[in-house]
């Protein structure tokens, strides 16, 4: 399979010819790029990427292999993986298998040795594209082009489907640390013992990353993870001290049940939302969201913390953003701004114990500059009379 041919076709008709890596086959999805230079494994396993084809802009990917501890979910969610050069060797004392093995095992179709910079520029100029990766013997750029471009155009639009239901937990469970074989605490978070005396957090799972659960647990809280369709009443039946709204894939407007639930909790419990959870909070309050041209996907975006005037270097992974004027009208103060494009990165309700951020304080991959948010959430939990 060393030089197996692979093709990437985009809905605009562009075709990239490269070599296959990982599983052979044909997969379609929305093509997005990620500019993180480390953390490909966290990206592969981030449920927010459900149904997407991810292109890494850094060119050497797979260098340190794959290990269980760095997984953000029990399986990868990225459907197809694109890089300039995938490494055939895993070199790390932490590696348990090579990236190629991992991708084969999880049927992730990969293509490399293509001009990923040209692809990135195309996505930047034209906005998100649907695409298809085909990899395997017998492919021919001339012969297969039209068929693959047509297939790319037939990929369902993510904003028309509810992708959350594909990634949320099927049943309620309490986070008790890493599953079998996946040791290691939260990346960068101080390790606190989980005490029975700690507060209880109900975490609504729209595609939650493990490092979020690790980070919540590291504050000393008991974390109960709930399916996305859990109702407000069901949440309140648990009598949690606070509610956490997770990240997740897709257009927030599709998750109407989640918006409903949040509406029912807003005045009853302190709430902290991240990414999709942030967008859903906005929608639940009557604010609006919109789709970004090509989204934010990386680990180097500067965010201004309005309260301190300081900059946080943040991990970002979203295609939708909250419209600031509507958020203000809905009773929010904007607390964080993206210094790249001026979009909303965080907000706090002016009256209710309710705040949310668009970016990822749990990082994984990415910098730990925003870890203070976990403590901030914890301090809100005291707001409610117990």
């Amino acid at each position: 399979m060393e030089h197996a041919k692979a093709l990437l076709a985009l809905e605009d008709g562009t075709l990239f010819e490269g070599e296959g890596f990982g599983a052979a086959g044909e997969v379609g999805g929305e093509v997005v790029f990620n500019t993180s230079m480390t953390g490909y494994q966290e990206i592969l396993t981030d449920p927010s990427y459900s149904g997407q084809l991810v292109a890494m802009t850094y060119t050497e990917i797979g260098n340190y292999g794959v290990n269980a501890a760095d997984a953000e979910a029990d399986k990868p969610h990225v459907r197809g993986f694109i890089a300039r050069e995938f490494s055939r060797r895993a070199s790390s004392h932490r590696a348990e298998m090579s990236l190629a093995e991992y991708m084969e095992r999880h049927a992730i179709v990969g293509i490399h040795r293509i001009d990923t910079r040209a692809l990135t520029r195309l996505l930047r100029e034209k906005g998100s594209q649907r695409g298809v990766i085909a990899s395997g013997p017998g492919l021919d750029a001339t012969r297969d082009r039209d068929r693959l471009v047509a297939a790319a155009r037939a990929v369902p639009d993510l904003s028309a489907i509810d992708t959350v239901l594909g990634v949320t937990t099927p049943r309620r469970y309490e986070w008790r640390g890493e599953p079998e074989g996946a040791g290691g605490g939260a990346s960068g978070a101080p390790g606190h013992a989980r005490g029975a005396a700690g507060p209880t957090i109900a975490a609504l799972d729209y595609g939650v990353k493990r490092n979020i659960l690790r980070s919540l647990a590291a504050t000393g809280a008991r974390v109960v993870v709930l399916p996305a369709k859990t109702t407000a009443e069901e949440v309140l039946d648990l009598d949690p001290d606070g509610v956490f709204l997770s990240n997740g894939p897709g257009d927030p407007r599709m998750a109407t049940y989640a918006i409903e639930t949040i509406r029912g909790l807003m005045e009853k419990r302190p709430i902290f939302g991240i990414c999709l959870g942030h967008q859903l909070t906005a929608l639940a309050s009557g604010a609006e969201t919109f789709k970004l041209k090509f989204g934010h996907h990386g680990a180097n975006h500067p965010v201004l913390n309005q309260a301190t005037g300081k900059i946080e270097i943040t991990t970002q992974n979203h295609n939708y953003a909250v419209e600031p004027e509507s958020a203000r009208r809905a009773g929010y103060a904007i607390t964080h701004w993206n210094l790249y494009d001026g979009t909303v990165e965080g907000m706090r309700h002016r009256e209710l114990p309710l705040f949310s951020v668009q970016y990822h304080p749990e990082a994984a991959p990415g910098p730990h500059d925003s870890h203070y948010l976990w403590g901030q959430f914890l301090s809100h939990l005291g707001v409610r009379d117990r």
Partner: protein
Amino acid sequence: MPKRTDIDKILLIGSGPIIIGQGCEFDYSGTQACKALREEGYRVVLVNSNPATIMTDPEMADRTYIEPITPEVVERIIARERPDVLLPTLGGQTGLNTAVALAESGVLARYRVEMIGAKIEAIRKAEDRELFKRAMESIGMDLPRGAFARSLDEALAVVGSIGYPAIIRPSFTLGGTGGSIAYNIDEFREFVAWGLASSPISEILIEESVLGWKEFELEVMRDVKDNVVIVCSIENMDPMGVHTGDSITVAPAQTLTDREYQAMRDAAIAIIREIGVETGGCNIQFAVDPKTGRMVVIEVNPRVSRSSALASKATGFPIAKIAAKLAIGYTLDEIKNDITRVTPASFEPVLDYVVVKIPRWNFEKFPGVDERLGLQMKSVGEAMAIGGTFKEALQKGIRSLEIGRFGFGADGRDPVDLAALRPEERDAFRDDVTSRLRTSRWDNIFYLRYALLLGLSVEEIRDLTAIDPWFLENLKEIVEMEEEIRLHAASGGEPTRDLLLRAKRMGFADVQLAHLFGKEEPEIRAARKRLGIVPSMKTVDTCAAEFAAFTPYHYSTYDGKETEVEPSERRKILILGGGPNRIGQGIEFDYCCVHAVQALREQGFETILQNSNPETVSTDYDTSDRLYFEPLTLEEILNVIDAERPEGVVVQFGGQTPLKLALALEAAGAPIIGTSPDSIDIAEDRGRFAAIAEKVGMTPPPNGAALTVEDARVIAARVGFPLLVRPSYVLGGRAMRIVYDEMALEEYMRHAADASPGHPVLIDRFLEDAYEVDIDAVADRERCVIGGIMQHIEEAGIHSGDSACVLPTYLIRPEHLDIIRRQTKAVAMELGVVGLMNAQFAIKDGVVYILEVNPRASRTVPFVSKATGTPLAKIAARLMVGQTLAEIGFTEEPKPRHISVKEAVLPFSRFAGVDGFLGPEMKSTGEVMGISPTFGIAFAKSQLAAGEGLPMAGTAFISVNERDQKNVVPIARDLAALKFDLCATRGTALALDAAGLRVKTIPKLTEGRPNVLDLIVNGEIDLIITTPLGKTSRADDAAIRRAAIMRKIPFITTLSAAAAVVLGVKALSDSGMQVRSLQEYHAAAATRGAGAPTHGA
């Protein structure tokens, strides 16, 4: 926070001469800082002794002091200028140490100068290893185990607890000076003594060895609001134990998981906060145990550094410029990223390419030097390459070194052809390779290839070298490609599109492919183009294409889909740079390239610059209109020409690198402008030049060319000993020797015949005891104007780059100067020089001899330009695009009223045990300049700036040859009058005694003990004057030279230099040292109506 308005005048201290460990990266950072601060409306006062820098161009600062960088001199400048603040973090270790000295002696407090960027406490915490250790421990950082020692006994106690191998690191030194690894107690004793001697405070740290661990660096920036960003991560391919300056390094880090990388990032942020670097850049080094992931902190540099220059070039994030802006109060979010224009500097650059830096060494110039790589840096320069992958960048990096190699071997230049070995030879070679790889050496990279070809596994090689398997696997892929092509070609296969494309993606050069296919380079190029395989030109943009980039900083890569540059409609000139610094081709040529760019930009041309040296100003992305960070090979220059279609290509400013390619470029259709490649060739070709010389009435020294020992004997009989001998077609004084007798000549001839059979050896009469003169001029086809004439202070036979020289000349008779001027002008016309020309003459016994003519930029151009206030390189660039000297208004030789002295700075103290012998082969790494109204002070300043202050009192040792014994008397008398005690060898002592001087007789080395060497070692000698002639005494002096170098005792080898020293000492004791800025010198010259344009014209 807006910029500070409570300050107006800022003092910047530069880094002084280029030395190993402190190169021209500080010109790059200092230049950026000057520009950034003046842009903000501050007045900048600059002190730097190095004339070859762009930062000392008079237009870069409001006041430019080319003065020695010592605390005393800087204090005078402070007293004169009264700056509000001092920015100490941009001038390397020299700048930092000087600032610390000024703070500690109370000078800064006395003149109320505030230190900005880093406070004295922060500098101390980072630089003093004991404070550093305590600070790191206080924030829970893991460090190698170890302790400090101030004596051998203390050191032995420490090593008793940590065991061997042990690392010895002296406090407060630069580039690892004095650092060593001891494997046993004997080595330990020796290295401890050296370490204690190297440390200015006689303190060493003895540490647990982390040899073989992985080495990483992070470049960190912090602003006054405590925002911190990581600009770049760097991973060393060479493991811990090899100085990072001697390592192949790669950006970004390749083998860290995100968890590991973030842990390192968290540590770096905690460290910069704890050290207390308020604003600006900081370089932090870590070691990671590949088996366990244990991470320890190795070192922190609280200033911009060689690595930060590399990081700036690797990412497009201008660290020094941002550091300067942060120092005056801005925060990161208030500064715009020049490249994207819309995003702020408060972000972390991301790369979508791989950067490889490879050091450049010059071991061949220092026979006998220990070539093993270790804790002390030995390289003199570096090349950087950008590629889509590590494989591509590495191969580009190797050919960027300009060592005659074109990639990872397979270029027809491999010293061993494996296919030609018999099985038993192959086994023996395998053993050889295996044992070689156990020790780090500069050429190990090529032995890694042999190891892979010989079938050693990645794991076996890792065990030998401690190089991470990821790098080795990539090397293996390159070797597999090589073998695939070899196999294909062996079965008669022609280059196919698939094969060529895959090879080019791995960075193979056309030269390598030509070798593997058994074809010529142009055939491969043609085949490749026919098959549509041409490079894409990509952009370095700090953001991996997430945003549109405006700064045109480009590199080539073979991924086939999209090229980002479009040739513009403007008139365009391509200027070829000088590649990595090496002895003989350094910052002076980069200075010339930058001036050419500036002049042509001013004239409305679009300037395109191609270079591979990350340390330079020329590779700053805002120096030229377009920058191509590419190797300077025929292939890669033609690629840029294809992409840009310039109307002219400039080869005469970048030193030998572009000159050597001039004929090939012209043959390939490149429009070379300025002096024609043919004229350049005439000047290099002895036979062709002889005819021209005769035509213009020049007198070469008696000479001949010999193919055999017999030829040589005949020529020697005709021209007479001593002789200057050198192989033809070798440049920069390589392998040039002076021979005094037939035996030495025969030995040389036999060696030369072996080394390059069929090439004649050039034999010249060596003009012993002559005056030598260097001249720089500019010419169009109508006239030639002299820029300056310099007289060497050292004896003839010492390479001009190693000689001190003075402008104007001070001991040359006017009629001889007239001959020199006339001949220079005539030869310029005869050669059709358009642009710069340098010539060297010697005067002996009333005869003016021509030694060399070089129709190109010379090493002295920046010195002459600074001395006279005439920007020669800028004028030359304008001539090359068709302007005339008359149009420019430069028609008269400038006649400065002040005296400028240039002194060379030598690297001998870096190389233990090397003979500090100066000869026809250049060995200096850098230069300094001293300026004063009088020769004595100018000379004294140059000596002080070069690091060898003149002794104001003490004991002078004098040993001169018979002929000089009479002439040395007045010098000795002056020394005695200056209260020096005199001692001398027997013959000299007799002469001095006869003249009525009190002198002590000292035995020569062969005359018993205690002899002169003992006195030197015991520190009883403060000044050495010897003028030996003849072979035996030269050999005799090696030990004295070594001893003098290691103890930094001034060592004078000519009477004229000795007289200069005396004048200097006398002037210093009479009037003391005055400081004056370059702007004042030039203004004084201009008011006298010299008629020459000043700098910036």
